[in-house]
């Protein structure tokens, strides 16, 4: 599992940041990739599998991080990918994994890719996952382009293996989905260490009961103090880039920045001296202090939350920062110019384009038609079908996060007056149901509202929104090969629900009649409307044909 064998110094390629992470993972000798699809992270794992890497979608991000932990604890190198909100799902294990640390017999490493979405191009929030690095005590690297995405992926594995900690690689939409030039191997740090598979028993370090966790927390903080010292003496992770100006001008303006913001800053302020932070947790505070003292005006420019500004000021270093208005949305060259000019005048609203909508032949149309007609209160979920909230249906009333539609629906039923409660319907997609709908269904059975509840599972046989990925309900692996299938109607029946399965697209009247009837009954009902996604149907037929052909 050495890295040098696959390094190629002559190749120059134009690749996305996601492709670069994949190449970095390959060149870091990754044993197994795990994850759950989520824009803008999805292509990383797909590319890794396409290059021959071992990779699989998990039912959700928490399971993905658990599997990755097992891989690392067995001495392997694990890559775990998800979008920023996926880290919320995975957070439970993350916060204690750092206490335990990662150590197999001869190594073991884990890199968690968090793909943040400033500006919310396709997400429900723009949370800044640098906060997770601090809260869960996870070292964090932030690449600015594809070259850095490649290099830092390799560095992340090196750091993980050296310090026996998971490392987060924080990507953002513009790094994930921008194509820039990459020369694999040219600038990369070597990935040291032989990677020996094997389990090492160490109960006090790996079983986090309170008696073990108390010293583990102290060990973790000690490790981070040591890492911070190492970071201070590793300037390639916080380089200073001089400006174009002459010596005198260069010391006037200094900018501290990281990630994609760096390229905007470099373009907006060619004369400024820049401290570019490649590692944003821990922070090289001595280097930051020295930099701030070397310039007349020091400005922190960061996308999203004022994370760097707060940390730097808390260390007693005087820096200027963006005003609150630039916390919202992405940064770009124009906004960086405004920040530097201390311009707080209102920004022109970007012109509105055409919003997305359900495909004309989407199998979900009749479902939303019936929900609208029956004047339901719809507690919805995350997926293409969230577009049911827009014109022409406007038939979704609440949507917050993956799987929430069921529990929120139950809460509404418990609380609303009966005439409204009996109109509440939860709507969830097939992949989302597998992701985090099962516990919501258990809640429906366990704490049934007096009016009962109706859950509609929209089963289009794929994770449509993110680009048609497989999930446990399709019975196919990430590579579209046959595997075990979780049959959702069997699961729902076994859990105690009344279950109907039909195709609302083919039989819209029957669906409407069934929904009307179920709403009148005080029972726990699940209606599965099953028809393949119009965009995926051809491919699904091909996968099925291939499977039966080889059987």
């Amino acid at each position, binding site marked *: 599992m050495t890295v040098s064998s696959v390094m190629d110094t002559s190749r120059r390629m134009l690749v996305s940041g996601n492709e670069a992470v994949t190449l970095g993972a390959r060149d870091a000798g990754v044993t197994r990739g795990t994850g759950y699809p989520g824009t803008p992270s999805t292509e990383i794992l797909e590319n890794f599998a396409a290059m021959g890497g071992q990779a699989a979608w998990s039912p959700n991000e928490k399971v993905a991080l658990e599997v990755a932990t097992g891989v690392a604890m067995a001495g392997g190198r694990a890559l775990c990918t998800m979008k920023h909100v996926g880290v919320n799902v995975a957070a439970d294990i993350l916060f204690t994994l750092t206490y335990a640390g990662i150590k197999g017999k001869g190594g073991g490493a884990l890199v968690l890719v968090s793909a943040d979405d400033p500006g919310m191009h396709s997400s429900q929030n723009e949370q800044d996952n640098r906060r997770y690095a601090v809260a869960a005590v996870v070292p964090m690297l932030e690449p600015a382009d594809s070259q850095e995405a490649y290099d830092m992926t390799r560095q992340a594995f090196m750091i993980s293996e050296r310090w026996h900690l998971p490392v987060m690689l924080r990507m953002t939409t513009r790094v994930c989905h921008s194509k820039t030039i990459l020369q694999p191997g040219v600038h990369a740090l070597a990935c040291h260490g032989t990677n020996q598979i094997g389990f090492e028993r160490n109960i006090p370090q790996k079983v986090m009961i309170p008696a073990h966790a108390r010293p583990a927390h102290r060990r973790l903080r000690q490790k981070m103090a040591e890492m911070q010292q190492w970071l201070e003496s590793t300037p390639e992770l916080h380089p200073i880039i001089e400006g174009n100006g002459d010596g005198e001008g260069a010391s006037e303006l200094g900018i501290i920045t990281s990630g994609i913001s760096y390229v905007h800053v470099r373009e907006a302020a060619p004369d400024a001296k820049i401290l570019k932070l490649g590692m944003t947790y821990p922070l090289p505070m001595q280097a930051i202090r020295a930099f701030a003292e070397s310039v007349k005006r020091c400005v922190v420019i960061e996308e999203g939350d004022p994370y760097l500004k707060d940390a730097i000021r808390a260390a007693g270093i005087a820096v200027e920062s963006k005003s609150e208005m630039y916390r919202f949305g992405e940064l770009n060259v124009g906004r960086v110019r405004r920040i530097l000019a201390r311009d707080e005048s209102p920004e022109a609203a970007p012109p509105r384009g055409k919003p*997305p909508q359900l495909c004309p032949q989407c199998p979900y149309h009749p479902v939303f038609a019936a929900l609208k007609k029956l004047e339901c209160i719809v507690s919805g979920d995350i997926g293409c079908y969230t577009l049911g909230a827009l014109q022409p249906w406007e038939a979704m009333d609440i949507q917050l996060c993956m799987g929430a539609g069921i529990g929120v629906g139950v809460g509404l039923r418990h609380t609303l007056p009966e005439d409204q409660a009996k109109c509440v319907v939860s709507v969830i997609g097939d992949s989302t149901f597998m992701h985090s709908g099962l516990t919501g269904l258990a809640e429906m059975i366990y704490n049934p509202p007096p009016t009962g509840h109706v859950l509609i599972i929209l089963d289009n046989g794929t994770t449509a929104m993110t680009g048609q990925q497989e999930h446990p309900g399709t019975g196919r692996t990430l590579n579209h090969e046959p595997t075990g299938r979780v049959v959702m109607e069997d699961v729902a029946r076994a859990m105690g629900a009344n279950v109907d399965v039909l195709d609302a697209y083919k039989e819209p009247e029957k669906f409407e009649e069934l929904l009307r009837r179920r709403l009148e009954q005080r029972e726990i009902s699940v209606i599965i409307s099953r028809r393949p996604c119009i965009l995926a149907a051809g491919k699904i037929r091909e996968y099925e044909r291939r499977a039966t052909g080889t059987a």
Partner: protein
Amino acid sequence: MTNQVVNVVLAGLGGQGVVKASDIVAEVAFRSGLDVKKAEIHGMSQRGGSVSTDVRFGPHVLSPMVPTGQADFLVVVEPTQIDNNRGQLKPGGMLIDPSMIDTKKLRNTKTLNVALLGVLSAHLDFPPESWKSALSALLPEHLRDINEEAFDLGRNIGINKEPCP
């Protein structure tokens, strides 16, 4: 140095080949040895919504996103998407839009994106062979002929127009 960067914004609706067209532009610039960056947004735009992509090339490119109002060229595949993208053009920049193409002359209207690239190609310094080889590299073989035809149609229209100032 940055003023030598050429900025191209391509726009349209999901499913019109906007991203593919931007990949072709980026590929041509990449093959000529220039620095190239390309920014695009996936996700919700796949569901028929507005799509726009930025391609920047030159000796050294910094931000992958074309700064607002600095596009040298704005290529729009869908007429309804001109107004919401016009602000991307710099003063004197060139709008390339479907009104320049007689779509009846296209064997398949889905090649409109490539026909517009043909128009664009007439205003950039890359040889036509570079464009042809990028088309071959990025499009399926069975679609090559109709796309080459569309490209040539657009290029001839572009050559006969006044060059961009």
